[in-house]
């Protein structure tokens, strides 16, 4: 079947689908990714959509993209630059050309490159004809025309036909990547169950695209990406925000505490609430609150009443929640606060990712106000991070801030499906009815944790609140010595969490020339860069942190074994300064980027090399 084409065996490929928002690029990318998963590839995906729901037609602002990185080995990032770009209009070509590798394949809908459209995109003349794309494998396909021809027998309107152009591009890509059409046709069948015409139209266009790609001349390549060597087991793909929601559900089931979410919609965190709202059958209660403050305050009320209480937000929302977080610290109630970070300050760049809320998570409250801060490192890790955040919150009676970010929250990845019964046990310290010794602030001597006494339980009536309390008894107190004691106890209680979390691991040897330190959503890019250099024999290792407050107990010992330490993060140096404050005995180098973009593997490799060379 593919006799006329040259088959290129590749270890990994990065593909980007780009078009006007409304061109269906998210769906196209998702279906292409599904086909890769079914063929056994590992992958990572990232949707890159504009903040506007429908920006003006054919403008750069309106470009919507979907990037997918597939491979026959572990795929940890969505890829620095792409091997194949599908551009449905001039603006999407213009917006993405800087991320296309030299010699890469570019497929365009040539029909969309009319003068008006390329002028709006900012081109002086048609980029398809002016030689500017000569260094690429350019495929000028008349996608619009061929789409219209494919559906001509159905007598559908031009507007309707245009909506299926994305299927033409997908059909081409499925041919070029040697994938079967059937799973996509089955999907279309399900999607358009009630609209036979749309099903037919999409199917015909998909097949037309596939057939068209088959007619392209011999020099065109067919890409082969062999199945990845993945650990045995059951898998699915999962988006970070979905994984976060599911991790919370698992923690609720495992702890026996019903899940309550009080939240207010905010990009890029909203999907967690949307996901949880679907699962009433698992007993979840979701309150879409009137604002961010009501979101967290309702969660605090639900926590007092015995729920696994959660609020989800992004940076601006976390700012609004600050006072209430202090209340949860003071009342020593379990609460999970999830911040899916975005570029700030203020409204910033809502759809772009950053790690710049760390200071806010650590320090953004009045008074001495310690709590646990954690970070999720990948879309799949969001499941485990959310589970552990809930476990720590309940077992240690404390608010936990879990930092995710827009990049991993919206990105997706393969996820090995765990069994809930095999996840770590969660044992909330519930007070027993009529316990004669119950006192609101009586603490477990080992953990300093107070008990959770639920309203409705006989014999445990008590009052808590934002005013300082007498330790043990829980009465309102302004006693100076007691305040000092309570401040110290609240801090020590958080430090004690370090006795219950995993030690920090290192990727690579126990010692070496350079220790790369990172946290949160940069895990994929940094791991890729470090392993690439390790493969070349460099004495470079990685300590990627999931626990930030408190730090794992072995952190200091681990740092001592390296000649140099470099801390990489997508902010101006928040974790590195926290380390300078917490573990001041080391000289820390830093690599920072604050552009709303993830690290590229290539830029990290370059910077690590400099640090390795200039010892």
């Amino acid at each position, binding site marked *: 079947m593919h006799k006329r084409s040259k088959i290129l065996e590749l270890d990994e490929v990065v593909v980007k689908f780009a078009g006007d928002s409304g061109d269906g690029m998210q769906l196209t990318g998702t279906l292409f990714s599904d086909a890769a998963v079914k063929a056994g590839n590992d992958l990572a995906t990232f949707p890159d959509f504009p903040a506007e729901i429908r920006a003006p037609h054919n403008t750069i602002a309106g470009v919507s993209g979907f990037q997918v990185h597939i491979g026959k080995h572990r795929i940890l990032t969505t890829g620095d630059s792409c091997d194949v770009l599908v551009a449905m209009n001039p603006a999407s070509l213009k917006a993405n050309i800087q991320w296309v590798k030299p010699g890469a394949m570019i497929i365009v809908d040539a029909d969309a490159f009319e003068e008006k459209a390329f002028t709006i995109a900012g081109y002086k003349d048609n980029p398809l004809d002016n030689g500017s794309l000569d260094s690429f494998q350019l495929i000028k396909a008349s996608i619009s025309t061929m789409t219209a021809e494919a559906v001509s027998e159905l007598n559908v309107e031009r507007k309707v036909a245009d909506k299926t152009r994305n299927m033409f591009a997908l059909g081409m890509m499925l041919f070029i990547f040697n994938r079967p059409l059937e799973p996509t046709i089955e999907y279309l069948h399900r999607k358009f169950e009630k609209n036979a015409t749309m099903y037919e139209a999409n199917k015909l266009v998909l097949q037309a695209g596939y057939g068209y790609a088959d007619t392209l001349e011999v020099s065109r390549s067919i890409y082969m990406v062999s199945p990845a060597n993945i650990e045995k087991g059951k898998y699915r793909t999962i988006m970070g925000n979905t994984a976060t929601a599911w991790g919370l559900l698992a923690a609720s089931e495992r702890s026996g505490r019903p899940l309550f979410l009080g939240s207010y919609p905010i990009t890029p965190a909203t999907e967690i609430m949307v996901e949880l709202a679907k699962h009433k*059958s698992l007993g979840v209660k979701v309150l879409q*609150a009137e604002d961010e403050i009501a979101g967290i*305050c309702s969660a605090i009320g639900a926590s007092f009443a015995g729920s696994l209480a959660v609020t989800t937000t992004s940076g601006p929302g976390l700012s609004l929640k600050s006072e209430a977080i202090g209340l949860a610290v003071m009342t020593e109630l379990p609460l999970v606060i999830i911040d899916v970070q975005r570029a700030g300050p203020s409204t910033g760049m809502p759809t772009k990712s950053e790690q710049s809320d760390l200071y806010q998570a650590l320090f953004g409250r009045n008074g001495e106000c310690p709590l646990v801060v954690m970070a999720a490192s990948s879309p799949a890790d969001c499941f485990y991070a959310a589970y552990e955040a809930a476990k720590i919150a309940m077992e240690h009676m404390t608010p936990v801030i879990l930092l995710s970010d827009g990049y991993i929250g919206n990105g997706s990845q393969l996820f090995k499906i765990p069994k809930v019964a095999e996840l770590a046990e969660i044992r909330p310290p519930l007070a027993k009815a009529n316990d004669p010794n119950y006192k609101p602030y009586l603490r477990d001597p080992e953990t300093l944790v107070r008990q959770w006494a639920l309203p409705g339980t006989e014999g445990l009536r008590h009052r808590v609140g934002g005013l300082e309390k007498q330790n043990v008894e829980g009465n309102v107190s302004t006693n100076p010595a007691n305040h000092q004691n309570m401040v110290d106890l609240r801090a020590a209680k958080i430090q004690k969490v370090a006795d219950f979390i995993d030690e920090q691991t290192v990727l690579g040897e126990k010692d070496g020339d350079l220790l790369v330190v990172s946290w949160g959503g940069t895990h994929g890019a940094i791991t890729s860069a470090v392993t690439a250099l390790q493969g070349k024999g460099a004495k470079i290792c990685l300590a990627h942190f999931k626990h930030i407050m408190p730090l794992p107990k072995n952190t200091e010992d681990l740092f001592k074994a390296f000649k140099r330490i470099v801390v990489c993060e997508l902010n101006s140096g928040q974790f590195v300064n926290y380390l300078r404050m917490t573990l001041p005995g080391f000289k820390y180098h830093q690599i920072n980027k604050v552009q709303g973009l993830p690290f590229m593997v290539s830029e990290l490799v370059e910077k690590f090399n400099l640090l390795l060379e200039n010892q």
Partner: protein
Amino acid sequence: MTHHHFIANFTVARSEEPLNKEDFMSGEMVRWCPGCGSHAILNSVEQVFPRIGYKKENFMIVSGIGCSSRFPYYVNTYGFHGIHGRASAIATGVKLANPHLSVWIATGDGDSMAIGGNHFIHLIRRNVDVNLLLFNNQIYGLTKGQYSPTSPMGTVTKTSPQGTIEHPFNPGELVIGSQGTFFARVADSNQKMMTDVMFEAARHDGTSVIEILQNCIIFADKSFAGVTDKDVRDNRQLHLVHGQPMLFGKNKENGIRLNGTRLEVVTIGQNGVPLEDILVHDQYRADPGIHLMLAKMAPPLYPIALGVIRSASFSTYDDQVEEQVRIGKATGKYRNVDDLLNSGDVFDVK
């Protein structure tokens, strides 16, 4: 328009033995000023809780910040002293998490109408089944005397030395404008009416707002003297009783009648006005038109309306949440999280 009426399925468990006031006294020192109207409110709550008859451990009091919000510490129930303005949001979480609790909010005019205005209107709009005691003293007491959103226009305070230039809120208007289902108004000087109204609030399914005209003896003393003083109160207070004509005056000689689209004060027998012309109070009426007019009445043209102004039956938010969870559990695809994890496109790697 039709709306579902849910019968409250989550009635609070009743105490098996009779309770009394002492069962609800916390023993904590009460720190309000001597002569403060809040003492009377505390006394009423301690009296009405045993009468309501739920188990002691099923009462929960939530508050915000302000003089009023010290309240939870003084009552021996589960209690939560929140942060400024947020009691309504905290109480919403409590009630949704455990609908078997009888939840009470203690809040003030600053707490609920200024910093917490948003939570106040949305609590009412959702009709969460909680009872809200609005200590309205028309002043900021705990911060020592600044004007509040209910201070009458022109009030001279520390932050308005030339008098306020803001239109005050009428809490009843705000409640009804927020789709409120229960609104009552009482004066702190009338303990009997206060406990009766609290009892009715507890019986009402939905957000019950009781505005208490509470005298701040230090910073706004006698703010309500114009309606509560002995020599004026008969003519300036209309005590509403469901099913009874709206009569007031020393000998109940005055009444309220509807004249066109407006309320009107009339004297029985004068100008040939018969008793039959007087409006009969229907607190259960779904349409809030008359209730709104009653809530807005104020001297000098009208008496102020006290008692239960509105008590209309609508589905509560918490009942509907429980109902959706019940339906979800009965019809949902997933019995547990393992089902969910293994749903959709799942594949084996061998």
